[in-house]
Each structure stands twice: as C-alpha cells, then as structure tokens.
C-alpha cells in the first residue's frame, strides 16, 4: 500500500521535473525581450484608456513614449502636469509643460433662444439625426441635443441640461481627452486653453449663415457683424464665413468683445462678477494688467 504511494510520488515528481526542464528551455528560446521601462511608464499613466493621447490606450502610449526620441509632442491630457514631468524625468527627457485645455460647447441655442420649426421623432442619436436632415430648428449648425457627447465622456464630466437641452461641461472633471469633440457630428465642441484661473472667452456659436438668417433662427447667434474684430486690440478675432472665431493663443482676455457683441454670442467664463456702475475703461484696464502679468 505505502509502496504504491511512493511510486506515485516518485513517478509524478519525475514527470513534473522533466516538464519543468523542457519549459525552462522553451521559455529561454522564445523569450520576448521588452523594455522594462514600458511597464514602469504605464504604471505612471492614469490607466483611463481614453485614447485622448491618440494612441490605443495607456499601454500603446507608454510604448510610444519609450520609443520616442523627443516626447515634446506626446501628451497625456488626463495626467496632471506633474505626472507628465515625472514620466519625462524617468525617461530622461526634458519636461515640456503642456498648456492645460478644457472642452467648451460652442452653441447656446437653448429652447428659448432657438425656436423649433419642426418635430424630429426618429432614433434619438445625434449622428442619425444629422445624417437625415438639418435638425428641428432653423439653425442647421446647432446642437441636436441627444447627448452623444455625454455618452462618449468617460470621466463623468458632462451632463445634459434638461432646461436648455444643451450639454454642460463640468470643468473640474474635464481632462480634455477630446472624446466628446470626436463624438459630436456637428463639431460644436472645441478644446480650448483653460486660461488663467480658468477664465476663458469664446464665441458660443458656429452658425455660418448670413446675419439675418442666423438671427432669425436663434436669438444668440453670431451674425458676423465684425464688431468684435474691430474692437479687439490683439487681432485675436477672425471673421470667416459670417462667423467670428477667437484664437485662444492670442486672446488676452480683455473682454472688450464681450461687451461689444450685439447678440451676446461671445461668452466669458469664470470672471468675477462685474460691478454694475463701474466705468468700462477701468474694468478693461484692470484685467489687461493682470493678464499681462500672467503672460
């Protein structure tokens, strides 16, 4: 009886040993040599796999980082600045600070501002509606309001405002990965510089129709009057196809255009509330000063 147990143990042990030896040599033969830094770098990335960097997930981005000779053009929008500096240091590159960005919705066509001209009752998906026709309002450029951008956001940084029918971006959570930008069939969402103290100025409209047509479709449309272009001291605003666009790299946040816009299409975000009686030039001068210091 006990002999049987001994035989079993010995024979199985010998088989196991043999298999182990074979496996050892096979493993040596087919060994894949991988840069250990890839694993390390991947560990330093946030692991969101959002694709905001343009690579297939964090692993792909880590491989690209390790391979690259110059990482100045590679940036993980989800990592904070310190995270990218740490990776740069680890890989022996010079750290390049990327300007933090944030997504903005360039449409203010709320139910009130932009009246419906017809009813859409098809599948509730922006891409489907936009492929069928211009939309249920007079504006063929504006938000369709089915929230595909919200569905695309992996960071819970967006929600649909039930009152306005427009998407809202929660700035604190937005990492500027660009998923919403890619999801929007109307190209309404744009990644813009977050700006000092998150202060931003942008044209909240992408309607390229002539002034009258745009105004008829939506109360707060950009009518392409060009007043903002004239008033801008920094030549940051361009007018193409009846639509003003503010270059965020040139804009010094003086807010002159905001006051000038006749349809309130230019939005300012996160500025301290204006003192109502304060004279205009003072406000402007004050802001200009602070911005120059920052710049």
């Amino acid at each position: 009886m006990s002999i049987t147990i001994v035989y079993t143990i010995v024979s199985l042990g010998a088989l196991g040993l043999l298999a182990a030896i074979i496996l050892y040599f096979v493993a040596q033969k087919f060994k894949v040599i991988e840069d250990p830094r890839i694993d390390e770098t991947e560990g330093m990335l946030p692991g969101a796999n959002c694709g905001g960097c343009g690579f297939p997930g964090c692993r792909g981005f880590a491989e690209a980082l390790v391979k690259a000779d110059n990482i100045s053009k590679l940036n993980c929008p989800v990592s904070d600045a310190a995270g990218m500096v740490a990776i740069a240091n680890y890989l022996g590159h010079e750290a390049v600070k990327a300007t933090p960005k944030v997504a903005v919705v360039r449409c203010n066509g709320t139910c009130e501002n932009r009246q419906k001209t017809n009813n859409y009752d098809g599948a509730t998906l922006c891409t489907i509606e936009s492929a069928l026709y211009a939309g249920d309002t007079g504006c063929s450029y504006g938000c369709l309001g089915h929230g595909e951008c919200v569905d695309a956001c992996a960071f819970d940084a967006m929600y649909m405002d039930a009152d306005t029918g427009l998407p809202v971006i929660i700035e604190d959570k937005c990492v500027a990965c660009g998923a919403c930008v890619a999801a929007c069939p109307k190209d309404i969402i744009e990644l813009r510089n977050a700006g000092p103290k998150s202060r931003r100025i942008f044209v909240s409209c992408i309607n390229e129709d002539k002034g009258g047509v745009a105004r008829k479709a939506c109360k707060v449309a950009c009518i392409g009057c060009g007043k903002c272009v004239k008033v801008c001291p920094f030549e940051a605003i361009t007018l193409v196809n009846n639509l003003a666009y503010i270059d965020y790299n040139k804009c010094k946040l003086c807010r002159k255009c905001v006051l000038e816009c006749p349809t309130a299409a230019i939005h300012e975000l996160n500025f301290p509330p204006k003192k109502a009686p304060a004279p205009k030039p003072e406000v402007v001068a004050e802001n200009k000063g602070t911005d120059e210091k920052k710049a």
Partner: protein
Amino acid sequence: MLKTFKKGGVHPAENKLSANSAITMAELPKIATIPLGQHIGAPATPLVKKGDVVKVGQIVAQSSGFVSANIHSSVSGTVAKVEDTLDSTGFKRPAIIINVEGDDWLEEIDQSKDIKKEISLSAEDIKKSVQNAGIVGLGGATFPTHIKLSPPPGKTAEVLILNGVECEPYLTADHRLMLEKGEEMVIGTKILMKALGVNKAFIGIENNKPDAIKHLSDICKNYEGVEVTPLKVKYPQGGEKQLIKAVINREVPSGTLPIEVGAVVHNVGTAFAVYEAVQKNKPLIERVVTITGKSVKTPSNFMVRIGTPTIQLIEAAGGVPDDTGKMVSGGPMMGKAISSVDVPITKGSSGVLIFNNTEARRREVEPCIRCGKCVSVCPMGLEPYILMTFAEKQMWEETETESAMDCIECGSCMFTCPADRPLLDYIRLGKTTVGKIIRSRNQ
C-alpha cells in the same frame, strides 16, 4: 403562377388613392428654384448668372464630372440669382432661381403631340442625346442614365428590364404615365434597347395595376422584343436586385451591379424621358408627381416643371389638410420627411405624401423580443436586428462582416417590427460609417 422575388418582402396597405386621377399639367410657378444637385454625384456647374434671360429647355448648368448630369431651365424668364437655398433636408445647397416670364420654348424642341416611331439615331448618338438632355433615373435614385447605357469594358448587357412596379404604397405617378403615355414609353424602351444593343426587354408590372398590364401588352404586340411581365404584388419588388430576380430569375452577387448578370434596369418614367429627349429633342424639365394622403382633398397626379415649389402642388390638390402630421417626399416606405413646403420639385421627386396626425405618430421603442420577423422579411437576406445592435454599440468591423453594405434601405424590417425599433435608422448609420471606413482603407 405569377413571378416574384423569393427572399423576404412585406405587404403594406396599397392605398393607391390617386390611381384614377389623370395626369394634369401643373400651373407654371412664379419663381422656379432649380437645384444644381438633383442627381447622385457631383453637382452641376452653373452656366448662367444673375440677369440672364433663359428659355424653356435651355441648358443652365453643365455636368461637372463622370457621375453628374446637365440641368436645363424648366421655365422661361430672368435668372434672379444663383445662390444657396434650403433643400428638403434643411441644409443649404446651390440653386438657380428664375423669375418666370411667359412660356417661351427653345425652337429646336418639338412640342407637338404626334408620336414619332422611327428611331433614326445610332446607338452612340442616342447615348449622347440622353447625356445632353440631363436624364437621370426617375425612380428616385437619380443615377445619371447615360452611365447605365454604357456598360463597363468586359461586360455586356443581355436584357433590359423596365421598372413599372411602383411597389411603394400611395404613389401612382408611374402607373398613370404607363396608362397615358404607354406608346411613347415603349418607343423609349426600343431606343434604350438600341443604345444598349440588346434585343429583349421586359416591362415588370405588379398585378395590382391590371389596366396598365393590359394597355402595355396591347401596345407591345406591335413592338418586337418588348414584353410585359406581370408580377405578384410584394414590396420591395421595385428594388433593382429584387426586380431582376423576379423577372429573369438571376441573382446579382453581393457588392456588384446588375450588369454582372447581364441586366440593365430603367424606370418606366426614364424610358418616357428618353423618348422625349431622343425623338422630340426635349431635355428633362418636367416629371409626374403624385400628391396624396388620406386627408388630402383631391389626391392627384401632376405633370410638373422641375423647380416648382411643393406648396403650389399641395394647394392644387386641395391645400394642406388641417390634421397634417408629417409630409414625406416619396413613398411611405422609403420617402424622406421634408421640413419645409417651400422646397422645389426635383428630378427625383416622385410624390409628396401627407400623413395625418394619427398616421405620423411614431410609436414608442420597445426592447427587441428576438422574434426574427425582420430576418424573415429582409429581401437581401440580412439580419437587421443584429446590424442595429452592432451600429448601436459602434462595432463597425462586425457591421461590415454582416454585410451591412448590401442593405437596400427598403424599410421592410422596420415596417414589420412588433417592438417598433428604429432598425433602418441604425443600419443606415452603420452603412455610412462602414462606407467611410472602406473608402479610407482604399485610399
């Protein structure tokens, strides 16, 4: 035993309300809006500018590529402007807007009613004449006809099939045209046969139009090689591939054109337009349009100049009904809702259907119950429920391998779905996305 196609198909209520109303000439519009893109392919290049005086039949825009078509003025008058105007989808597209003054035709157009039977032009001249006349497929797809008349090298046409099926419910434009312009249409068929070099043509007609079958059969006795094929009623028999299967029992392989099996299909309306172009020198400037709907006072068929605003025709048919819920350009199965009644009639408009509030209501979407009805009715043998799911989940590779590109968008799946799922909406999304992927892959 009547012929029909085998796979799938549905039987929507026919509702051919305007079948007995003869084609009447619609009044000339005061302002004609002639879009530059009335066909599949590149929009035509305008040849006129503001202030130019044009006559009826004068070319106003020239074909701008291989797949493109000429556009002629359907009215006489002064060009008011050439600019972007709203089309039926609400987007802006370039169009020529003409202020109509009188009805002054080009002299070389034969306006007489005499039927000219002798075909004097050679095959090459016929093709040229069709191309110059800007003729496109009048069944709705608006593919330039002259391209279909020149089979690609290595392929030969064996048989011509005329599509007089009109399987869409409500529409009667082709039906009336067959009854009233039968002889011209058959001569048009002979012209197409000569251009293609085939000696056999079939006119496929569903047997819910017995009068048209009888009328055309009588005419065909005098024309060698043309034959009427009565077909069993089943939607979507008017689909090119379904019609070929029904009439000559050949199956067009996936991803290929009918010429692969030696067939060329033209709409009966196109045959009539070809007759007018070749025999009468008249370009494509008017077409038959059905205005119909359960609440429409007098459902009618009009011969309409291209560029006439839709509202004018609706007024002529008794005005916009009070309980209008939705207006559709085309038939109820494949037509597209229009967002404005000011849009002009184009070469591809076969009808305007007005739904009342109860008909227009779209029922709530329920979860799929896996009944498989959509699979059994799909005339292309696809699995619509799974294609929809793939498109919903953005699984484009699977959408492609499940042959989404073979979908003919007939809407049978959505028609039959007991859960009212928007199957076709999603399949169309899958098709456009997969199409983009394929194009970028081939670049």
